[in-house]
Structure formats: structure tokens, C-alpha cells
């Protein structure tokens, strides 16, 4: 007879002294871990609930401006520095870690229309209603000196926007036409027009740095190549586009913030159909900015809210609002992709977390592992109705909520009418136009 009994030595399973860690032998055999899926589901449910509990995105409000904040700019080198221009011509530089204004400049008479920093971070440019472009030093004047711009360019018309080249000393302004300037000269290198209309914003492509996009009030988005004298092509939409934002990771993708409450993500190579139509705002979208990861962007709207959209989703994943925040005019995603800043009508700049329930500060490795695990669980069970309902639930102000309902009814009525029209006309005579194509009027090359 040969016999062996299971006989464990307790010394191998119990810690020796109280100072040791407890010994935890693991065996991953599935029969020892029954109900794997239901238990994971419950964990995912708990994680989703906790996420909503901890969703406190609002961090700080920077107040000090004496008129609505009209434009924002990030510092290219310092995460803590932000520049803002207000409707009374004042430019302020803020320190985000201290949450304080570190410098105030009366830059223009009338609005500061645009502000942008030089790629090296030593100076910045502003344009205003007083038909000037001014270049300023980033550091304040030394003791006894007066606050004066480095350069001032007097133009003939009002400039409505400005953007700086990402690598060279070149910047572009827009107004009646798109002008491209060398920093050293007082006359533009070239100016491009296509039709006669006021252009509201111009943006350099961060990857293909010779490309620019602009949008004008005759409802079109025009793309330019700096190396050519003429614009590349344009797309005409149903309504006016307020501004565009380039994807910092995919050179040919940009998103347009439109007056018709939607945002359109275009592929530059095929402008006739947008890649995605982002709907959720209930009023005109005023500004858009991409996250440095290129996976998401944030949009500011006249409906007093900002929303975060994934690039490949048509619905927003997050909406931020406060009682006191009025029409949001400008928004920026910080370069560490963790925070969002927005400047609004009621003179404040607000700082938000990009991920509402994220814990700030240094995480211990166990905390990090736990959040990673929870994230994965949430992802795995995101389509289960119970979890989906909880994770999608947002409180909305009454005005936005009722507007959403109203617009839903209107959309439903339109769809019903369309269906009836199809039903009662000759088959094939009514063309079904997809939502994406509906808003594109024409593409001109």
C-alpha cells in the first residue's frame, strides 16, 4: 500500500512575526473561483457607482477680469501658465498652481480678439479691435520699465484671430483675408482670400505645419497651404462655423464647431462627408480644442456648458456646467491632458478635471492597480443596461434639459414627415440622405 495524505506545514502559510506581511498563496484554478462573471459584474457596477459618486470635476475659478473672457492661450513650455484676453482689451497671465493672476496688461482698445503664444514660449501675440497686432514678452517688465509691446503692427482692417506657426517665426492672422506674417516684418508675406467675407478664426496644423484652416461667416471652411499663394479647397456647410481645431495626432483630421449646435469632424482629404457629426449641444458651439492625445476634444457652447466628445463618437461623454457659468466663449485642454480651462461671459476662467472622477495627486501603486482594474471592468461591462444607465446619467440645468426634450420632439417630427414622404411617393424618387451628408452644401477645390 502506498499512501500520501495532504499534510500542510502551517509554517509555510502563516507569517512568522507580526512585522511580516501575511502570506497569501494563490491558485488561479477556475473551479476555486466560481461565479467569475457575476462577481466581476457586481464589481463593475460598484466601480461605476463610485465613479459617479466621486465625479467632482470643478477645480477652481480664476476671477479678475473685468469683462467677458474672449480668448485663451496655453503656454507651450510651462503647464502652469495660461494667458487670457478679455472683451475690454485686457490680457492677463495666470499661474494655475497658485490660481492667481501674475500679470495684467491693457493690450488693446476694445476686444482682444485673439491671443497666441510663440512656440518657444518667450513671447506672445495679441490682436484686437483697434486693428493692431502686438507682440509681448512673456516675462513682465523689470522695475521702473513701462509695460510695452515688443512690436506693434498697424493694419488696415480689424483682425479677428491669430495663430502662430508651430516651428518657425511665422504667424497668421485673419480678418477680411488670411495674412501670413514673418515676425521680423511689418507687412504680411502673403495674404489669401476666397470670396469676400470676414474670417473668424485661423489655425495652423500642428503636424503638417504648412497647412492652415480657417472658417468664415459665409458658412465655409477653407484650407490653405502656406507654400502656395492660393487656398487649397473649401467646404460649405449649412450654417456658419465658429472655429476649427486640428487633431494633434492625426494630421488630416480637424473638427469644426458650428452654429447649428453640432460639431463636424472632417478628414481633410475627403471633405464631402464628415467622419463624424457630434451632436449634443443645444445652442451654437463657440470653441473646440483637442486633447493632446488626439482621442477626445472639448467644446464650448452658447448653452452655458462645455462638453467632452470622443473623436469617434457622435455623443458626448461628459458635460460640465455650473450655475454661475454663462455663455462659454473659449476653451482649452491643457498640455498634460488632465485639465480643461474655459473662459466665459461672466468674466471668469474655470479649471476642470478632464476626467471627472479622477483622483488627483500621487497614487500609491495599490491605488493605481485598483483604478486600472476598475477601469477595465467598467469597459468590459459598459453595455449592460444597468451599468450603462448609471454611467451615462448626468444632472443637467433645467434650461438645457428642456431644450434637449424640445429638440428631440422636433427631430422626431422631422423624421416622421420624411418617412411619410418616402411612403407616399414613388419608390426611389426620394433620396435618403444620411445625417452626415445632410449638412454639407458643397465642396469647392
Amino acid at each position: 500500500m502506498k499512501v500520501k495524505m495532504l499534510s500542510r506545514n502551517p509554517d509555510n502559510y502563516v507569517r512568522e512575526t507580526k512585522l511580516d506581511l501575511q502570506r497569501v498563496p494563490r491558485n488561479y484554478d477556475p473551479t476555486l473561483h466560481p461565479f467569475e462573471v457575476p462577481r466581476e459584474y457586481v464589481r463593475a457596477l460598484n466601480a461605476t457607482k463610485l465613479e459617479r459618486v466621486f465625479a467632482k470635476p470643478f477645480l477652481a475659478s480664476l476671477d479678475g477680469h473685468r469683462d467677458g473672457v474672449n480668448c485663451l492661450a496655453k503656454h507651450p513650455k510651462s503647464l502652469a501658465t495660461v494667458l487670457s484676453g478679455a472683451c475690454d482689451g485686457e490680457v492677463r497671465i495666470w499661474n494655475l498652481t497658485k490660481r492667481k493672476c501674475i500679470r495684467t496688461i491693457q493690450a488693446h482698445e476694445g476686444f482682444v480678439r485673439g491671443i497666441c503664444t510663440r512656440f518657444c514660449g518667450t513671447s506672445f501675440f495679441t490682436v484686437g479691435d483697434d486693428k493692431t497686432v502686438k507682440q509681448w514678452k512673456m516675462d513682465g517688465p523689470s522695475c521702473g520699465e513701462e509695460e510695452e509691446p515688443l512690436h506693434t503692427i498697424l493694419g488696415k482692417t480689424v483682425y479677428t484671430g491669430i495663430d502662430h506657426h508651430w516651428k518657425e517665426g511665422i504667424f497668421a492672422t485673419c480678418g477680411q483675408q488670411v495674412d501670413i506674417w514673418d515676425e521680423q516684418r511689418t507687412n504680411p508675406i502673403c495674404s489669401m482670400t476666397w470670396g469676400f467675407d470676414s474670417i473668424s478664426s485661423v489655425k495652423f496644423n500642428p503636424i503638417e505645419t504648412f497647412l492652415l484652416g480657417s472658417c468664415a461667416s459665409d458658412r465655409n471652411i477653407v484650407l490653405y497651404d502656406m507654400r502656395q499663394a492660393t487656398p487649397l479647397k473649401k467646404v460649405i456647410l449649412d450654417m456658419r462655423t465658429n472655429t476649427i481645431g486640428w487633431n494633434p495626432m492625426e494630421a488630416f483630421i480637424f473638427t469644426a464647431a458650428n452654429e447649428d449646435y453640432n460639431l463636424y469632424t472632417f478628414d481633410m482629404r475627403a471633405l464631402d462627408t464628415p467622419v463624424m457629426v457630434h451632436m449634443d449641444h443645444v445652442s451654437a458651439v463657440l470653441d473646440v480644442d483637442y486633447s493632446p492625445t488626439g482621442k477626445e476634444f472639448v467644446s464650448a457652447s452658447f448653452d452655458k456648458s462645455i462638453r467632452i466628445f470622443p473623436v469617434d463618437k457622435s455623443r458626448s461623454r461628459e458635460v460640465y456646467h455650473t450655475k454661475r457659468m454663462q455663455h462659454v466663449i473659449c476653451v482649452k485642454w491643457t498640455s498634460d491632458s488632465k485639465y480643461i480651462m474655459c473662459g466665459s461671459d461672466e468674466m471668469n476662467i474655470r479649471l476642470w478635471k478632464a476626467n471627472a472622477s479622477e483622483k488627483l495627486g500621487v497614487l500609491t501603486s495599490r491605488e493605481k492597480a485598483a483604478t486600472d482594474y476598475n477601469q477595465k471592468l467598467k469597459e468590459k461591462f459598459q453595455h449592460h443596461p444597468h451599468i450603462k444607465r448609471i454611467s451615462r446619467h448626468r444632472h443637467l440645468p433645467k434650461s438645457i434639459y428642456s431644450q434637449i426634450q424640445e429638440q428631440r420632439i422636433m427631430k422626431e417630427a422631422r423624421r416622421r414627415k420624411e418617412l411619410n414622404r418616402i411612403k407616399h411617393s414613388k419608390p426611389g424618387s426620394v433620396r435618403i440622405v444620411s445625417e452626415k451628408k445632410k449638412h454639407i452644401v458643397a465642396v469647392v477645390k
Partner: protein
Amino acid sequence: METAPKPGSDVPPKKDRPQAKRKKPRRYWEEETTPTAAGASPGRPRKQKNREPRPQKSKSAPIQKKPRFSRKPQVLKKPQEWKSPGPQRSLSGAQDPFAGPAPVPVEVVRKFRRIDKSKKLPPSKSKAQSRLEAAEAEEEEISVKAARSELLLAEEPGFLEGEDGEDTARIRQADIVEAVDIASAAKHFDLNLRQFGPYRLNYSRTGRHLALGGRRGHVAALDWVTKKLMCEINVMEAVRDIRFLHSEALLAVAQNRWLHIYDNQGIELHCVRRCDRITRLEFLPFHFLLATASETGFLTYLDVSVGKIVAALNARAGRLDVMTQNPYNAVVHLGHSNGTVSLWSPAMKEPLAKILCHRGGVRAVAVDPTGTHMATSGLDHQLKIFDLRGTFQPLSARTLPQGAGHLAFSQRGLLAAGLGDVVNIWAGSGAASGPSLERPYLTHRLAGHVHGLQFCPFEDVLGVGHSGGVTSMLVPGAAEPNFDGLESNPYRSRKQRQEWEVKALLEKVPAELICLDPRALAEVDVVSLEQEKKERIERLGYDPEAKAPFQPKPKQKGRSSTASLVKRKKKVMDEEHRDKVRQSLKQQQQQKQEKAKPTGARPSALDRFVR
């Protein structure tokens, strides 16, 4: 993933030949002899490495591509069969003879595999398809990793083998006790408790604690390893059944009238009057549900974490006194006097399934921990084993001289049956194959009639409650040798138990999720998916995912005449049409074949009426 035929290790690459003559500096620990034959020793790749400074360059890459696991389980014994990846070079020049990750046997990997590839999913878009493929690949990798982690398990299971021709069933407990070490021998004991007569018993989930309930009111709980008594009381009422709740601190006792809950000091915490005349108790540890079967024919689920009754189901089959749970999916099995076993979940008013098992009443039911086998015994003296995976068909049956009154499965798939005052234990070749009923593995005669049976988790011990007391039997090879410290740890401290309790309560599975397939929650809900799609098409008035009709692209100047456009369009349409016809023909042929099969065995005169 397959074990590709590998030209690698034993045939030296040709490019080595010209350099082979050069005498090389040799370390003293390297072999002196140069390999002569093609079938070389493990020293071979070492030479190759010395010649080739960077062997992992792209030239040799396809040869050295290494499969994740091999098909042969015994591969561990033959190092020369191991796939040699690019030999690792260490600072000292010594070479790892077992380079690369350890190979993993296929069966072990299969144990950890979670995705069932045999199930067909509805066709999805390419994006979802690619995501699915990525998930599957990841899953495969994870199962390989998990299988590899089995190397780290510390303990080996026990066994009992007779010498040639010796029947293990003849081996007596006294012999086993004599042969094993002192610590194991101490696990065999008899409690002589004739006074309070036949005993029910229950081990806690960690296998550390034992609760006894005598018919005449004796209730005791003890740490049976150290033999330390936790409490001993007499409830002055008949005790029908006894169960530990989620931890050893709480004890549910089915008394003559009501259900009572005691703590480990013997203090009565609750008297649940809504559960009356209980005959059997089952505790579902992950759902925190106490399932009770009563004389009145009700199956009642009590949520012990909040103290609410979740469901009270009328089985409509008279007195219920045969009950067990399926540890794999928490479905409760009830045996009835008409020979059926019904499967219950608290979410359904009706049984999930009814299985006709015996010609007489069912006396005992047991389900093995993997949820694949169910053993039943009936008044017809039969002992049957059923397959629980979908078909509910009997796999094997055996007539016993007096029929089994109690059944229990161990963690490694041993089946114990109480036949009067004898306990028989059957073993199979493995946990997956189920016990073979041909000849018993062990038998033991007790001092009285068996009244309760349970294998102790994580110990090679079978606890038997009988009319003469309680016996703890040694059954080598019954238990899972390696426990998981985070799931149920026999050596846990109080602090660990408290932490585990909080975690377990946080992830309490809702009672509604109990169903036959516990993985159903992670599968694609095809029915509602199709329903949704249909509704969407109805709402939109067209199918947005339908394939657009072919529209020929305009070609260069002069080649895009109307005639050529029509021609091209027609060509594509014809091709599609041909494909369709081909497919339908194939389907027709398949149907014909399927029809032909069943009648092929033996034509009957009545076949002519079959259409």
C-alpha cells in the same frame, strides 16, 4: 499557437559551416567534445551562439519562432525537445539550458480558457470583428500565463495505491492511520455521542471549522484541526440540519419549529419565523442566500446579509427533504418522491429543469464542484450519475444492495455514499471525468447509521455524522491541495477574515443572476441585438447597414460611356447572383444529406408515411 514543426534546435544552420573549423576559446565549464551527430545534445545551440554574435537577428527569426505551449504534457521531462529561442547570453558566457518561457501543456491551458469558440456570433462590422479578435488573442495569452502559474503551486494531492492486485477498498482506516504521518493521523477521530443521536454536520468554507447538530438538540461548533470547542449548546428541540453561514462566526440551525441563527459563542441571534419546519439547509456563499426546504413544500431563500426573504417558491411536490446546491451555478436541486429532481433559481417561480431520475423516490442528490456531474440515489436502490451540461442524460448507473441515503462529492470529484452504516467512496480518473462506479475506492463501516456526509474542503477528510456520533475519515486524494488565499484561506487570521468579509459583502451577487449558465452575463445577447436592429430599421424606414448597390466609378475620359458603365454594373450584379445561386445549391445539398442520414440505419415499413 500550434506546435509548428521546428527545424531549429538539432539541425545546425548552414551558415555556421564555414566558420566551424576555427578553434574558439573555451570556458572550462563548457563541454570538451564537439558534437558529431546531427541529433545533438543540449550543448549544441551554445556553440551556435558563440559563433553568431547576435542570433536573434531577422535571419534566424522564423526558425526560432517559439510556440507558446506544446501538445505533450510530459514535455517537461525532455529538455532537448524544448524549443530553443535565440539563446540568451549572460555576462559569464554560461548559457541557460532551459532558455525561454516554460512550455505549458494543452490540457492545463484548456482549463483556464474562458471563451467558447464553438459558439457562433452574428456577423459584425469589421471594427467590432477586429476588436473581438484582439480580445480573443489576449484571452489566449492570459490563459497561457495562468496555466504557467501552476508551476508555482506548492502542494501535491494525496493518493492511495494498492500494491499489484490489492484492492484499495480493502484497506482499513486503521491501516491508513498507521501509514501516514502524525499530523495526518490526528485528522482521523471518532466522537462518541450516542446520547443525542444521529448527527448532521457541516464544515465551514475554509475547512477549518466543523458544526454538529444532533437530532436530540445537541449543537456544537469546533475548530476540528486543533480540536478546540467554540460552543456547545442544547437547543432543547429537534435539530434537522445545521449550516455555517459565510464565515465560521454564524451558524444556522433548522430546528423543529423555526430556523435559528447562532453565533460562534452559542448565543441565539435570530429566530426566523417565516421559515418554519425546515428539513434541509443550503448556503450559497457568493449570493449570501440561505436556501431552506421545508416540510410544507416551500423552497425559501433568505438573504442573510440584509435578513430579507428573497423568494419563497412552492415546489408543489409535497414534503421536501432532499436538497443540494450546484456550487458551479448556485442552482438548488430538490429531490422529490416521484423520482424527479428539479432545479430551482430564486428568479423563477417554476423550476429551471426537471429530470426524471428514478423509478421510486429520490433519496439523495449531490453535485460536484465543477457543476458537470450530478449523483442521485433513489428508493429503487440505484445510484446514477448525470451529465449536467445541457443534456441531463445519465452517464452511468449502478444498483446498490440497499441504496444510498446520503451522497457527497469531494473537491477532486470523489463520490461518497452512505449505505446504512457503511460509507463507500468511488473515485474517477480525474475531476473532469466523474467517478467510475465499478469498484469503490474506499469503504468504511461505522458505529451507527449514516445521517450526514461531507468532505472537508482542502483536507483529505470525510466527515460522517451517524447515530453513534461523528467520525472523521481519512480519504487520501479527496481535496484540492492548493487553496487560494484570497478566496478561502484555512490559515487566515482574524484581521484577514474581517477584510475578506467586507470584500465578499461588497461583491455579493444579486439573487436574480442565478441561472443555469453563470457565464451568460458575459456573452453576446444575440436575441435582443437582432430585435434592436429590427426596431431600428423600422424606425428609420431603411436599413442603414445594408450594402449599397454597386455604382461604377467614372473612369478616364472616353472610357466611361454609358454602355461600358452598364456593362460593368451588370458584370458585378451577375457575379453576385452567381454567388447566391451557388450558396443556395450548397445548402440544398446539405439539407438532402441530413435528411438521408437518420433513415439510413434500417428502413422500416412505416417510413413511407414520413414526409
